[in-house]
């Protein structure tokens, strides 16, 4: 007989037998190396700050900037998919909203890039809340289909509304963002400057996600993920928190879209197809749904891997599809994720 030790182990307190730990070995390794210490974090941040001095090629910088962009996108999706447990196959729609908001407002109305970010985010939130409403009535696969249809509608509108989006021809010539500060002017149009811009966005996104996850809102989302009915019984307002998750996710998606527009200086509907949504989905799946460091590492792997194996670029989507199946069969919680309640405590 094991004597009851580990009094601080609140995970197993209701069931005294030894339960399989819900932590993946990678998390335990990360903990051993002290990734939660402030000096480790400072070291990582310092490394991120000097990357443009290490990587000299434009191509390398481009890949790294894309990694940053996808970190923002995937962390946004992670709020809905990972924290709240709602499958969204239309995240590219929010991405498109942000990109088109920036493109149209800067090119046609001459607005500053910095002003278009909040506009894009507000539009994204509105759209996210609209998309969030069906989630109150439908679950799981139905919800997946609703989001899929929604993403496709946004794509169709972008492709056909010639007056606003110029249809398939897209909007070229988006001006680079500038920072003016009492006579001093900085134009963000080189790779290092874009890199620092996206690094700034990534840091804001990580900060926002961590703060929200640790707040009452985050707890409510996770309660909904584990069991919606129980969450409702415990007094969590499903309507409020689910639409909020979609709104939050949409805002981050729109932020990434705004950056994408100025980085590419060109937007067209082809950047926001269903395949784009699928690529974004695979990132939190690899890293572990709900895990912020996992999602970041997932983005690095998912965006860097196709660049390394360029010979197989034709097979990229095939590999992604097979990867999703294999991952779900053998490691549904991802590399860094926690197992879902129903997996850990099998009834």
């Amino acid at each position, binding site marked *: 007989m094991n004597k009851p030790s580990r009094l601080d182990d609140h995970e197993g307190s209701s069931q005294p037998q030894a339960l399989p730990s819900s932590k993946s070995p990678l998390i335990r390794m990360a903990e051993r190396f002290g990734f939660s210490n402030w000096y480790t974090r400072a070291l990582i941040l310092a490394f991120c700050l000097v990357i443009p001095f290490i990587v000299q090629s434009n191509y390398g910088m481009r890949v790294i900037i894309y990694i940053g962009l996808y970190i923002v996108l995937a962390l946004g999706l992670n709020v809905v998919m990972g924290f709240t447990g709602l499958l969204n*196959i239309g995240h590219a729609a929010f991405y498109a909203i942000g990109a088109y908001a920036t493109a149209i407002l800067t090119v046609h109305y001459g607005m500053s890039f910095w002003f278009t970010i909040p506009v894009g985010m507000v539009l994204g939130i509105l759209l996210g809340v609209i998309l969030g409403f069906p989630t109150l009535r*439908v679950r799981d696969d139905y919800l997946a289909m609703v989001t899929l249809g929604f993403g*496709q509608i946004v794509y169709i509108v972008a492709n056909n509304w010639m007056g606003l989006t110029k249809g398939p021809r897209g909007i070229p010539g988006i001006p680079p963002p500038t920072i003016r500060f009492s006579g001093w002017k900085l134009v963000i149009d080189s790779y290092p400057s874009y890199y620092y811009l996206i690094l700034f966005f990534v840091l804001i996104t990580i900060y926002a996600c961590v703060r929200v996850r640790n707040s009452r809102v985050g707890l409510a989302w996770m309660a909904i993920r584990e069991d919606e009915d129980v969450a409702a019984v415990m007094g969590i307002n499903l309507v409020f928190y689910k639409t909020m998750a979609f709104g939050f996710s949409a805002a981050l998606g729109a932020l990434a879209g705004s950056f994408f527009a100025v980085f590419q200086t060109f937007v067209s509907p082809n950047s926001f197809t269903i395949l784009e949504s699928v690529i974004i989905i695979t990132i939190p799946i690899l890293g572990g749904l709900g895990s912020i460091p996992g999602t970041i590492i997932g983005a690095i792997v998912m965006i860097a891997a196709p660049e390394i194996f360029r010979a197989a670029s034709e097979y990229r989507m*095939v590999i992604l599809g097979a990867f999703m199946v294999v991952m*779900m069969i053998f490691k*549904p919680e991802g590399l860094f994720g926690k197992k879902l309640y129903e997996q850990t405590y099998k009834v």
Partner: protein
Amino acid sequence: MFWQQFVNWINLGAMYALMAIGYTMVYGIIKLINFAHGEIFMFGAFFTWWFMTALSIPFPLASLIGVMLACVVGVGVERIAYRPLRNAPRFAILISVLGMSIFLQNMARIIWGAEFQTFEVDLPYPPLMMGGVVIPVKKVFILLTSLVLMIGLALFIQKTYLGKAMRAAAADREAAEMMGINVNSVIILTFVVGSALGAVAGILYAVNYNSIDPIMGFNAGMKAFAAAVLGGIGNIYGAMFGGILLGFLEGIGAAYISSMYRDAIAFGLLILVLIFRPQGLLGEGKYEQAIKVR
């Protein structure tokens, strides 16, 4: 003019109906949407095209082989993406089937190329004339094929022993298992029948539009799903009704509102139905089916 379009709409509706049956049958038994159904639709058309052009096999035989191969793909989807995950959280199954769908779609793109292929079938008969309306013989062919298949399916489900087993497994899987029904075989049979109907729908679609491409399954799949939901998912007659109805609504929307937004109309309709009447028009008030997890 109206009647001319009427024929087109009912044709479109018949194809959606055939495909929607596949969704609804699979949903009835495993309570999950088969995301890869659109890919089966596409594979049915592509296999047929491939046997016709590369091996110059006549259309009837080629389509038979195409449908059979598409059934094999459908069973493969069940074996790989569903069966290992039968007791997993639904979230995991959804992602694995979505992955399967992406995999198949891009596999087709690699094998046959991403561009459109012409799908020519000679039906050497003069068009039918009905009170000033010219009905091309291929439309008659499409309509008759769908009608025969739908009636055949209804008889199969209602009259045969296997159909009874399928209904039993759909009503209550555990109880059916206790009655000695091999539910695994029934699930495979469901995938075979659903895939066959989906593949036939794909071939008819190709006959109608004379062109095929690897992503044809995506839009058609979404619309057929919308049709299945419209009629009430899990209900085979609902799927037939929903398919025809969607064909009409889409046709009317394209003709009188905007033809560029015809896909958006179908998807918008899907979202509206899911929000306001998730059990569908012919759903038996089984609110739970659409709303509840298990």
